[in-house]
């Protein structure tokens, strides 16, 4: 049997808006992935540790507070430090278009903004994951 893709859905920073994170988590689970959700207020260190513990192939970050430019690159950096450079990091939330190129060059593979169908995220993961 093919090994299931393992996705860690994580909420970095302090914001409590997790409707999107939970909807995406459930859609990914319905698409056949193994999904772990961290809950709110996770530090970059906690998220990295969870990704390691859970042997995640994908880390999906959700953030709506505007702290993405600080927190997303920090998580990519920590994953690299822990030798998890194959982990696919994606992000979503209220993220201005102007910030997306910067996040991508920092190592975030894709950023999904409001209105994205969950199916697009599923497809992106299937196409880009290194499992």
């Amino acid at each position, binding site marked *: 049997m093919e090994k299931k893709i393992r996705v860690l859905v994580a909420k970095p920073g302090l914001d409590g808006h997790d409707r999107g994170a939970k909807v995406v988590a459930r859609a990914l689970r319905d698409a056949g992935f193994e999904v772990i959700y961290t809950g709110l207020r996770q530090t970059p260190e906690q998220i990295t540790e969870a990704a390691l513990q859970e042997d995640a192939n994908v880390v999906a970050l959700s953030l709506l507070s505007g702290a993405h430019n*600080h927190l997303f690159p920090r998580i990519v950096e920590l994953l690299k430090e822990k030798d998890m450079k194959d982990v696919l990091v994606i992000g979503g939330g*209220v993220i201005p278009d102007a910030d997306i190129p910067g996040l991508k060059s920092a190592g975030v593979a894709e950023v999904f903004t409001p209105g994205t169908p969950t199916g697009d995220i599923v497809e992106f993961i299937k196409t880009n994951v290194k499992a």
Partner: protein
Amino acid sequence: MCTANNEQLKAKVAEYTAKVEKSLAKFPERKNLAPNRLYTPLDVPATDYEKDLGMPGEFPFTRGVQPTMYRSRFWTMRQYAGFATAEESNKRYKFLLDAGQTGLSVAFDLPTQIGYDSDDAISMGEVGKVGVAIDSLADMEILFSGIPLDKVSTSMTINAPAAILLAMYIAVAEKQGVTPDQLDGTIQNDILKEYAARGTYIFPPKPSMRLITNIFEYCSKNVPKWNTISISGYHIREAGSTASQEIAFTIADGIAYVDAAIKAGLDVDAFAGRLSFFWNAHNNVLEEAAKFRASRRIWAKVMKERFNAKNPKSWMLRVHTQTAGSMLTAQQPENNVVRVTLQTVAAVLGGTQSLHTNSKDEALALPTEDAVRVALRTQQIVAYESGLADTVDPLAGSYYIEALTNKIEEEAWEYIKKIDDLGGAPAAIEKGYIQREIQDSAYKWQMEVEKKERIIVGVNQFQIAEKPVEGLLRVDASVGELQKKKLAELRSKRDNAAVQAKLATLETAAKEENTNLMPIILDAVKAYATLGEICGVLRKVFGEYEANVSL
């Protein structure tokens, strides 16, 4: 309402149904809508005007809490605002007051909402982002500088550390020469919905409920015009609930607060008149209007029949409203002006006491000044030009509206009974029941959108190729550094021995369950103890809430 010859009417409706079935078969996508195709007196058979509707300002308040509603004065137009530093936000408040806004509403940044100072490591990247950063009384003095606190009413969206921000507000007022009994405003102070939907909790339920009842008691004696809580459905709806769930879960939270205060020895009529609510104005205009009407009827019955409140003021569900942020689209953002207009119509037809209208750019960033002006103008146009505010509860007596009001009320009661059976709202949240119900509704909504069973204009139909939106508001990253500098200065200038003494007193008092913490917090705040220091002491004594995560 059903005075006509029922048999004759039933036959007519049957005849109508048979006639239209065939032609409607051509529109299968319109077939499965929730409401009936047509409403007649048969749908509101047992309406007793005096008992079910009554006069405005009278039990059960279906038609509104005031006798005159908008024929005396309009709702309070209150835009939720705050970002970056106290200086920046103070400027925005003065801009809004100059633009004709009638009340203030303060948005705090996340570190403030969760009780951390701006120089705490956990605050990195978040300072001043979603609201204004307030670390101490010094920031609060700047925030309200030049704004006479005896003349404006101020709403503060603050929950877990509500006691501390209220204390700061009282202290600023005193410096302006305004006594606490002159203060008018609201703190959100609704911790239960933080656990269930919004996420800015700090302490576990028991000490959190104590802080809330401490505030009820303190304000009933010292700040009598203050709305001590805004029991909020807004965030429950934003998290994905239905209209019925929004009011049911919120009223269940309200029941828990009243229970807690009575158990703490307060007389229900001493505090119930200062309880207020907060609803979401969503897209479906008539469903929303009916929701407001149903919620007033339910709360009136809860307070009168369940809690035996005697004062009619205790029976009234007074409500602030905000238009639904989650319904704004990042696609073709200009269209959001129309959405917000319809949501405003819903709130006004529902009889709200105050209203915040979202700005068109809020699916992308915090709003710019221009966008906020349009949002405020939307309210003013509805108030002055539309005629919707010219008569009290204009929808009353519509077969559809009355049937829908009854239906939403019934659905909400079912949830309230279920939550009672689970042991009340805190227990239902502890078991994850309320969170699961909300998540299920959110997922259902998303799947309907993705299957195009629900059309969102510009998102899953009528899309266009779009250029990135320019001119969005950005909060400068230097805000965090600036706040840190201000804090360092404060800590070097204040009387630190006095601060330590106040914090020690607070620690002792926090351990004594029967001590009201409000006066002690007020003392600490006046000595310029920071928000983070005060919450730190309380964290030490109370511990922190650990959410149970479920998918």
